[in-house]
């Protein structure tokens, strides 16, 4: 094959791939502006004849989408802030503080990764029912407040901090909390950003656990609300596309803005430690 043909082939394939990857997203956006019923015609229209915001109005005024959006924001932010705090502390301890059984405990945590999270879900539901957290924001947040993946990521990163920094501060009489807050945390900033984006996206997109623990509509997050709408309004494609836009747009924008950190974290997390 001549280099010119190879070049055309490779770039042609990339263009084709990008079209397949993006088409459903662009189609969703376009249909969300169509009049009710417009998308159910042949040939399938690509662009709205008369663009309207009616579907969005319908979603927010009648379908409770505003509540779902706020719920999602609240739950995802809660999980992000709490898990970031706890994972940072634990990851730092595993990387830099000395205590008996450190390596063995860490190996144990990594070993626990082979257990699928769903195994815990049935008893977890009973436990939360017992302490009264079923159908509440806390019920969604509480199990996500720490993750082995997050601890692992922080530990990998924190191991690069030179011990001399902490030792010098200890000799100067600084307490362990002050060392953590004033010396370690600033150095961990890049991994904090990465982990925050990861946690937020994962919490936002999570489906099975919120579906189980949220039994009433008033606490539904967007994916649960959308799934329930999709079962009721399966014929209203325009409305459902608007709902999908509301669900996906926030995370897509967040990803585009912070892409570098996200992809870095993905690679860090996939390196076997």
């Amino acid at each position, binding site marked *: 094959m001549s280099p010119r043909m190879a070049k055309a082939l490779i770039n042609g394939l990339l263009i084709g791939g990008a079209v397949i990857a993006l088409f459903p997203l662009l189609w969703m956006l376009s249909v969300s502006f169509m009049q009710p019923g417009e998308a159910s015609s042949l040939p399938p229209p690509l662009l709205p004849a008369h663009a309207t915001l009616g579907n969005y109005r319908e979603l927010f005024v009648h379908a409770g989408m505003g509540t779902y959006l706020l719920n999602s924001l609240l739950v995802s932010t809660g999980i992000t802030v709490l898990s970031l705090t706890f994972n940072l502390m634990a990851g730092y301890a595993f990387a830099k503080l000395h205590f008996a059984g450190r390596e063995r405990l860490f190996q144990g945590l990594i070993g626990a990764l082979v257990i699928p999270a769903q195994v815990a879900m049935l008893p977890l539901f009973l436990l939360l029912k017992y302490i009264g957290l079923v159908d509440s924001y806390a019920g969604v947040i509480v199990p996500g*407040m720490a993750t082995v993946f997050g601890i692992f990521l922080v530990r990998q990163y924190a191991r690069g901090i030179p011990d001399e920094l902490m030792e010098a501060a200890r000799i100067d009489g600084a307490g362990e909390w002050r060392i953590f807050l004033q010396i370690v945390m600033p150095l961990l900033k890049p991994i904090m950003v990465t982990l925050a984006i990861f946690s937020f996206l994962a919490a936002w997109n999570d489906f099975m656990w919120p579906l189980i623990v949220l039994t009433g509509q008033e606490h539904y997050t967007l994916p649960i609300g959308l799934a329930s709408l999709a079962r009721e309004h399966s014929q209203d494609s325009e409305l459902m596309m608007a709902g999908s836009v509301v669900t996906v747009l926030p995370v897509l924008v967040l990803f585009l803005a912070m892409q570098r950190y996200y992809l870095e974290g993905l690679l860090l997390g996939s390196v076997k430690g």
Partner: protein
Amino acid sequence: MNRQRVAWLFLAPALIVLGLFFLLPVIVALALSLTDYDIYALANIHNLRFVALSNYWLLLQRPLFWSALGHTVYFVAIGVPLSMGTSLGAAMLLNSPLAKMKPFFRTALFAPVVTTVVAMAVIWRYLFNTKYGMANYVLGHFGVHPVDWLGDPHWAMPTIILFAVWKNFGYNMIIFLAGLQAIPIDLYEAARIDGASAWQQFRHITLPMLGPTLLMVSILTVSGYFQLFAEPYVMTEGGPLQSTTSVLYLMYEEGFKWWNLGSASAVAFLLFVIMFAVTALMLRLSKRGEGADA
């Protein structure tokens, strides 16, 4: 010295969360799977009885469990190779020195990964609608008769596999891309001078150099694909004719629709055991493969 105590204070919040909300429930799940915990026990715990392995025994005799396992294995066996092949292909295209606008293509191909499964599944339901869907419309131009993608028991699972590949391939693509970039270019230069074809270079340089990455990625992808749930929940509700009921879908229905928590826990544990066995087998086979190569 209170250094030890400080360390444990730093660890405490995360360990308490993981212990209380993960480890403890896993142990309880094992215990639960040995009981007949159902809606009567949910109302009054005195109705709970120890039934030893009878949940497992009954499950192994239920055709629905075997068909759910079959559908899940089908999804894994076809979905994982297809997904990884697409990821590797896309990564090789992005890694080619001839490719243009790489950052744009990388972002575009990765975009489906960060989206919400439920929202995308809703979109696919319309794109694969029998009557008005874009898929049938485009295929119609090539003389293909309309396919009832999600309504035909033979097509529903392939459609879900296609969806999963589209949604997930970008993730492994990024990992493969990093692996490809770490392969020294000299190796390819030397092979080309020796007259190796593109296929030979792929077979004898790219694949062996990616070896460890391929193994890790395949294990992670297999465990991920075994956990199929949201896609059938939104796209087909496990149907038609239960042709897309996965093991986790069965667990969900058993546990949270019929409130048979004992039997549902047994389903969860069986899934865990199967996943563990498959992963162990993959590790073992790859070790033997290495031995044969050497």
